[in-house]
């Protein structure tokens, strides 16, 4: 979801985003407001990017950027998923830049890493994105040169016409290509035709990593940003009874301490949603250290949950699940939950 409502106060912003059940990410456009610092330099560029589709941007001076849609948990999807795109796009892989995509599910569809599924789920859509963009670039060249597209070939980001000896880089073609209709159907390579997939490649963002420029979630900072931390129950199977924030609110730099609900009323939980941590406490302040200290001053009382029944979307569809009372670590709970 996008929450870009400029009129929202910061407090309501926090609340709204925390109510989008099941998600931890915030769908706002960070890049517009990033605080410039050394680490940001490589993402906050002012180039004239032409967007061919959600995964590919090209500049008129022939820089190619591929967006990795999935979170990087160390399986090197920052390299492997863009390789899929480029196998079909056929830009010069040694020059391609890779960037982490925003959390933007309408644009990227699947943004899930886990269960060995990232590669499998990306296999068709990412290759298709690469092939679609390549075809649009070829079509732009064909229009320009007045030749049929099937007489063209591509190599390392250049479209060529053998008959006339004409050639143009993707950068030169990108602006025209972006105006063309997206092809409905594209042919994908057969595995035997792969030149990049199946070859060992180094981490595409290795340089950023070893120089501290690689940006992780915690590294995105925007002007005027506040820091929030959450207080969870001490064990699964417990819920918030009450809390006293009066001492915490007196601590320096603290803006607010409030209870919030993780799941909207009526939200149907799915696979990875936690079942019992619904009402939590947020501590919000100016800086991390101030929030860490104030968090310790919040006096929270927790109680065991009651037996509840709730709908879940699990494998095999929607069903009602009974969540037994008590700590999830106890034997009775295991027995009741079996």
């Amino acid at each position, binding site marked *: 979801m996008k929450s870009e409502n400029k009129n929202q106060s910061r407090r309501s912003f926090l609340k709204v985003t925390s109510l989008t059940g099941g998600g931890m990410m915030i769908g706002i456009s960070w890049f517009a407001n990033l*605080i410039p*610092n*050394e*680490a940001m330099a490589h993402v906050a560029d002012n180039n004239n990017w032409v967007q061919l589709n959600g995964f590919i941007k090209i500049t008129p001076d022939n820089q190619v950027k591929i967006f990795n849609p999935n979170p*990087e*948990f*160390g*399986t*090197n999807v920052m390299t492997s998923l863009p390789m899929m795109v480029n196998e079909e796009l056929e830009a010069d892989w040694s020059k391609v830049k890779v960037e982490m995509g925003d959390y933007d599910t309408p644009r990227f569809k699947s943004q899930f890493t886990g269960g060995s599924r990232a590669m499998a789920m990306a296999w068709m859509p990412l290759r298709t994105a690469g092939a679609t963009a390549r075809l649009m670039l070829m079509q732009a060249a064909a229009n320009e040169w007045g030749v049929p597209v099937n007489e063209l070939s591509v190599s390392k980001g250049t479209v060529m016409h053998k008959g006339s000896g004409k050639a143009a880089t993707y950068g030169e073609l990108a602006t025209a290509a972006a105006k063309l209709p997206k092809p409905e159907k594209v042919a994908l390579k057969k595995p035997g035709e792969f030149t990049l997939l199946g070859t060992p490649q*180094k*981490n595409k*963002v*290795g*340089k*950023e*990593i*070893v*120089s*501290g*420029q*690689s*940006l*992780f979630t*915690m*590294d995105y*900072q925007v002007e005027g940003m506040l*820091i929030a931390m959450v207080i969870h129950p001490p064990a699964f199977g417990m819920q918030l009874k009450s809390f006293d924030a009066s001492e915490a609110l007196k601590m*320096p730099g603290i803006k607010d301490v409030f209870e919030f609900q993780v799941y909207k009323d009526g939200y149907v939980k799915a696979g990875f949603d936690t079942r019992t941590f619904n009402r939590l406490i947020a501590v919000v302040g100016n*800086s*991390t*250290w*101030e929030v*860490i200290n104030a968090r310790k001053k919040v006096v929270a009382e927790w109680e065991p949950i009651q037996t509840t029944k709730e709908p879940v979307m699990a494998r095999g569809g929607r069903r009602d699940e009974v969540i037994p009372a008590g700590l999830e670590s106890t034997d009775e709970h295991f027995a009741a939950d079996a």
Partner: protein
Amino acid sequence: MAKFQLKINGKQLSVDVDPSTPLLWVLRDHLHLVGTKYGCGAGACGACTVHLNGNALRSCQLPVSAVGTQAITTIEGIATSETEMHPVQKAWLELDVAQCGYCQTGQIMSAVALLKRNPNPTEAEIEAAMTGNICRCGTYIRIKAAIQKAAKSTTK
């Protein structure tokens, strides 16, 4: 709140923070040097490693008030020059050490400090020096090989 003059990566920078604030949060929150990472905040993971007078140190454990005039170096200040990386960074790239990369700036800071005081460490010395740097991705084998490679490239 109190004002502190800090010498970081050769520059004089000033901040106005609570004296108990760990150097880690001064670097990240106040100076926006986010290459230094937060892992545990308890001195147990090494993600926050920086140099104080050239020695590796857990920045989450050092209150800013204890820094004084000592020189701080972070991952942003480790390169040999604007255009040339440190030999340890180069070895890291050649051996493709990183996976997710989260721990790697801390690993590199520890490795650089190690090679500075011991340019030709044995395997056991590498293990001893790097033991406080945790990598969830398990890149330890390549970390060790990269340190050995960097040692060779600088001692020959």
